[in-house]
């Protein structure tokens, strides 16, 4: 098990961080979050062509960079730190991971290179308006047709679903229930029978779409009815990627809290000299470091495919979600009144914390999964 990053990984992190510092200051985040599109095409192009990030964990055989899941998580962490507005989580961490896990060799060769190059934006249409994160709750149906399948039903909470060129949708064979009869399908975002609507989301830095499928033609991705096996692993990987993003953001909240505490004077002293504030910061620091350790361990477990991976994926997600939410809350508290203003950047992170807290399952869900999956 890898407990620390290699020199090459640390160097890579610095390169990504410099790019984010340069391209994603909060002034930029504020501009992009106000748009429907939600990202800057020029920045996405640079990020793709100069750094190759969209193909970071995609094997070279499919046009990617050929790095592993740990490098993907480093990217997520740095993007979280900078609150980057870009379709990386949706296309690379979610959709490409799904294709890599479920697709046939031919499909990987056909679909992954354009995602890796950043030209195709892909999205994973998994959740539905019921809001349940258990794959068994899937209701969207896939009925065989002359040249494939047609999808009927709806998806919701689809990250970047409104701009995606390619949709990877989870659907069930009619008449099945539970985790049986689930499959993944690919279809064009602008395809026939697909109606998309941008949802009004609490976190404007992460765009969510609702998608209606009305006899929408789709291609089976991988094997029929194999979703019960592939989906849990795809979702675990996604949860670890999201946990990594959350610890990057949480670290930023800690730094912002300390910076302000060492700037703000009250009662003739820096507020950072009061134990009430110092102890809050010490607790935040503890929690952020523990959440990092959990996310790093889970990323490493994913890369090495260790048997404890499903349990530690849930551990990392629960830990990172709680930690980020609490760090954002405390950051506002330490800032006092100014922390509640629109002008102060903390609310941007607070809102991302809230959406990440529930996306892919809230901490209660993952704590339960952790215990049920735990093996001594």
């Amino acid at each position, binding site marked *: 098990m890898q407990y620390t990053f290699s020199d090459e990984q640390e160097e890579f992190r610095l390169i990504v961080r410099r790019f984010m510092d340069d391209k994603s200051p909060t002034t930029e985040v504020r501009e992009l979050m106000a748009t429907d599109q939600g990202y800057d095409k020029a920045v996405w192009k640079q990020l793709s062509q100069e750094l190759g990030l969209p193909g970071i964990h995609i094997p070279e055989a499919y046009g990617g960079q050929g790095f592993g899941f740990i490098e993907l998580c480093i990217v997520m962490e740095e993007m979280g730190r900078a609150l980057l507005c870009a379709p990386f989580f949706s296309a690379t961490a979610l959709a490409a991971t799904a294709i890599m896990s479920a697709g046939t060799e031919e499909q990987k060769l056909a679909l992954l290179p354009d995602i890796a190059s950043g030209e195709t934006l892909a999205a994973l249409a998994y959740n539905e308006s019921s809001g349940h994160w258990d794959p068994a709750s899937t209701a969207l149906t896939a009925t065989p047709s002359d040249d494939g399948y047609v999808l009927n039903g709806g998806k919701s909470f689809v990250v970047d679903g409104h701009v995606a060129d390619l949709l990877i949708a989870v659907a069930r064979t009619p008449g099945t229930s539970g985790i049986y009869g689930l499959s993944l399908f690919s279809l064009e975002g602008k395809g026939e029978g697909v109606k998309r609507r941008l949802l009004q989301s609490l976190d404007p830095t992460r765009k969510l779409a609702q998608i209606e499928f009305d006899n929408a033609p789709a291609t089976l991705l991988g094997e029929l009815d194999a979703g019960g096996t592939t989906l849990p692993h795809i979702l675990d990987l996604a949860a670890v990627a999201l946990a990594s993003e959350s610890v990057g953001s949480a670290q930023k909240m800690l730094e912002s809290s300390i910076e302000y505490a*060492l700037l703000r004077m009250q009662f003739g002293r820096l507020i950072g*000299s009061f*134990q009430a504030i110092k102890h809050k910061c010490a607790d935040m620091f*503890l929690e952020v470091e*523990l959440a990092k*350790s*959990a996310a790093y361990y889970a990323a490493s477990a994913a890369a090495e495919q260790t048997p404890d991976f499903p349990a530690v994926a849930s*551990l990392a997600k629960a830990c990172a979600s709680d930690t980020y939410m609490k760090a954002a809350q405390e950051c506002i508290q330490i800032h006092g009144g100014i922390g509640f203003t629109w002008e102060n950047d903390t609310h941007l992170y607070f809102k991302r914390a809230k959406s990440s807290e529930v996306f892919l399952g809230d901490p209660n869900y993952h*704590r339960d999964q952790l*215990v049920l999956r735990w093996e001594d």
Partner: protein
Amino acid sequence: MTTNNTADSNTTSNEQTPDEQSVRSEVRTWLEQNWDPNLTLLEWRKKLIDSGWGVPAWPKEWHGRGLTIGLGDAVDDELRKMGAVSVAKTGVRMLAAATILEHGTDMHKAKFLYPLLTGEDTWCQLFSEPGSGSDLAGLTTRADFDGENWIFNGQKVWTTSAHHAKWGMVLARSNWDLPKHQGMTYFLIDMEQPGVEVRPLRQMNGHASFNEIFFTDAKIAPEFMVSKEGNGWKVAMTTLAHERRLADGIRSWGRGDKGSGRVYDEQKAEIATVMEPYKWYPQRAGRVDLLIERAKATGKYDDPTVRQAIAKVLIMAKAAEWTGRRVKAAHALGRQPGPEGSLGKLAGSQVARLAAQAHTLIAGADAMLTSEDGAMDGLISEILISVPAESIAGGTDEIQRNIISERGLGMPKEPRTDVDRPFRDVPRNTVG
């Protein structure tokens, strides 16, 4: 600690540092010729100490071979492989030894180090007082020089092993007109004298692992002062630095060596005496290892609120464990350890509290019972009534948070009103 390591690892200019393989082979040869489990513990240890292999990282003139700490560890490793019993390392004796080696006179070294290593002399550490817990420098045990001896009056507390200690490391106030840190002096005190009374201190969990010490005109001859008058705080910091460094050792030397023969039997008895006060320590840390097994055994595993409670413990405990490994892995690569190295203690307190909550949920009504009537013959109730010590012993959580925020996060200290004036003018507790 850092400076010690640096000094130790520097090759002395006139001598070649031997390489690890030759050291290992030399000690193996010596052990093959000399190790005999049928000696008495004392006979064997004398032989080991006289050979220089007992404490190879100590200076040559004081029972060692002047090797680096790394090579010393390699020697210990060879002893372990051979199943050979080491010098006495139990209790606080190694803290006393480190302090004497760094600050003691030649008389101290000649008189104390040998019987300390053989195990004949047991030591205790007399720092904490009823009136000064977190604020150690606020201590009020007096040392007054009467022209012939230093006369001690006052009270110490939380002293492990004092009831069978021959010698104590004691910090006392010798000057009340100086600011608090400057008026303390460090002494080595004979515990077996009329002016020293040792009383066991019973804790809320029923055990009496510590003692209270009362000094009533106890005497210390001037030559038992360590370093010079007024330098006590600096010497105490040496002791405490080694306490932090050696904290991990408690578990390893508490296991002892496996084998049969007289020397093993005598070592077993020695360890049993020294480890007696620590037998509830695993319960103090919350016994995370028992949670899932207990939940399944009681059927509470089916209760989702119980699973939530268990998960909270697992998350904290595993993340803390991985943080420790991150620190070690970074250290092994020669990277400067970050402030995350100071987090383990605070994490441990929270793990213990969360674990006690989960054990309570699992035990249900049985949480009201103890001893043979309680769950696991009282082991679970011992967890519940021992955990409150975890966030106090060895530095309270609040002190840990101060250390983390000041040294780790660069936040300023609270303004102080106790260091800029003579100690006699500092408000203090009336007790002690």
